[in-house]
């Protein structure tokens, strides 16, 4: 059977048992985080006993933001490259990683200015990256390939109210980036960038406090190690969340108006479990074992 005929396996249905198991796993992982949290004090006596637990919760929130935000991004894949489906012509994982890493670098640069400013900067960085990408993609579609933007999933654009059917070519699912997809892309970039930055900041603050005590070095010496360890964990977590969301979407999505968008509750649970697991491992590094 050809790859075209092989429809994606995942339907829109929820699996209530698995969701419940997922939530129980999440609670167990957070519980382990609560147990190990005071042990971090061995290396950094000055911090609060729940410092590591708060970092874990921050990581989970960041991961959920990434997983939820990715659903907004218009992903077209190979059909979009041929002008047969709306969206940006690449895969979910690549777009989510691109937007999130752009935001992460923006937010990391502002890490000194406090949590709120850094997270907002990360969100703006991710949103800006997606806005530029969406605009250039539309330039290429409209002026390079000569196709108008039209959605195949809705009759009228939910924001502008423009009708879509007249502009849609026969035999396609729509093409280009309609306004709603553009807006969705920017929202997705903002959520993804903010989530990535939040993960980075939480882990960075934890490592900054504990690494000097653990490695018996000065805070200035520990700084580059803390930055790179937090950065690598943030990238790893980001990719895990982005790929899990890609599995949830299975292929292409047009944006927030796409019927596949309704699958987001599954991605929230999945991202929360995966982030709790990976975040716990990241915290165990600075726990005496």
């Amino acid at each position, binding site marked *: 059977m050809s790859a075209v005929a092989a429809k994606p396996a995942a339907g829109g249905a929820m699996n209530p048992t698995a969701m419940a198991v997922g939530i129980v796993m999440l609670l167990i992982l957070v519980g382990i985080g609560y147990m190990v949290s005071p042990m971090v004090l061995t290396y950094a006596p000055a911090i609060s006993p729940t410092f590591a637990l708060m970092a874990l919760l921050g990581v989970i929130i960041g991961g959920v933001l990434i997983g939820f935000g990715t659903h907004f991004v218009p992903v077209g894949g190979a059909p979009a490259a041929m002008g047969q489906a709306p969206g940006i012509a690449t*895969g979910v994982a690549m777009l989510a990683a691109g937007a999130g890493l752009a935001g992460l670098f923006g937010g990391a640069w502002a890490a000194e200015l406090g949590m709120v400013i850094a997270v907002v900067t990360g969100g703006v960085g991710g949103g800006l990256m997606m806005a530029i990408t969406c605009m250039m993609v539309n330039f290429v579609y409209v002026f390079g390939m000569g196709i108008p933007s039209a959605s195949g999933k809705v009759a009228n654009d939910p924001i502008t109210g423009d009708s879509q059917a007249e502009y849609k070519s026969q035999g396609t699912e729509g093409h280009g980036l309609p306004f709603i997809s553009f807006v969705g892309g920017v929202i997705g970039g903002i959520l993804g960038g903010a989530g990535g930055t939040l993960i980075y900041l939480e882990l960075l603050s934890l490592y900054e406090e504990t690494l000097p005590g653990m490695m018996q070095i000065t805070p200035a010496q520990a700084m580059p190690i803390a930055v790179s360890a937090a950065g690598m964990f943030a990238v790893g977590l980001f990719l895990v969340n982005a790929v899990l969301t890609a599995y949830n979407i299975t*292929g292409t999505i047009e944006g927030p108006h796409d019927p596949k968008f309704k699958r987001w509750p599954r991605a929230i649970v999945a991202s929360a479990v995966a982030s709790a697991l990976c975040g716990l491992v990241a915290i165990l590094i600075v726990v005496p074992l």
Partner: protein
Amino acid sequence: MSVKVEVIEGGVPHNNILAAGLVSTLVCLYLTYLNVLTSTQMFSFFGGLAVVAALVWGSHTIKVLCSYGIGTGVPSAGMIAFGSGVIAMLLATKFGMLAPVVALVLAVVIGLILGYVSNNILNMKIPAMVQALTEMAVVGALSLMGFAALMTGSFTFAGLTNGSTSVMGMILANHEMSFMVGGLAVAFLLGALAIQHPFNATLGPGWKQDRMLMLAAECGFLSMVVAAIMSFALISTGSALISLIIAIIGWAYTYQQYMELSKRDAAAWLNAKPIPDVEGH
């Protein structure tokens, strides 16, 4: 249920590749421990060989997973392999000599949970999913550890975070010149690209197992060349030179073999030279 797009016809069964890849990766990683026993850094190149073995195994795992239409593209598999692998690997480095085994166990746990999450919570329902994600987390963790051993001669947390710069014969401790700060991100992407490329490049009706695995070995050695060049900054020049020479020899051999296999599988080929020979003028 999903439809399996391609089946493996002939060739080595996946379980044999799994066993061979796992054993040779672990053995190669532990051979770098000769560095400690003999107080040299000459055996760092075994880390690179561990990377090659892990990547060959991992590329076949990606083939098994992506034979089902997962609809997300082959590169995403490489990304989740190293994304979950780096997390297991960094924690495992704390356990000193046990690090490779701990990385294996941790990656299995992370991979199993991620596999359950994607197969059941996200409702993928792909039979190979749990095993494939588990294997890929292990491959990611062990190949990053291989890169660490290749670049620093060690796979412990201290070895990864301590660097030393030798200035005019004086050894200075310098944490900024360490694998963790400079090398990890590069190793991450070197591995993630090398693991997803072979199947992405050879998939289709003309897929042949030996050709894909040879391409995987070629990508592994090519990554090892880059990592060996970077290792000049972290280990002694002689040891880095040994790694580099082995990497270049391995790359040249596998590249030549891959070209032959490609010509074997091609319907026809023309040796179009970059600059045509002009005759008779």
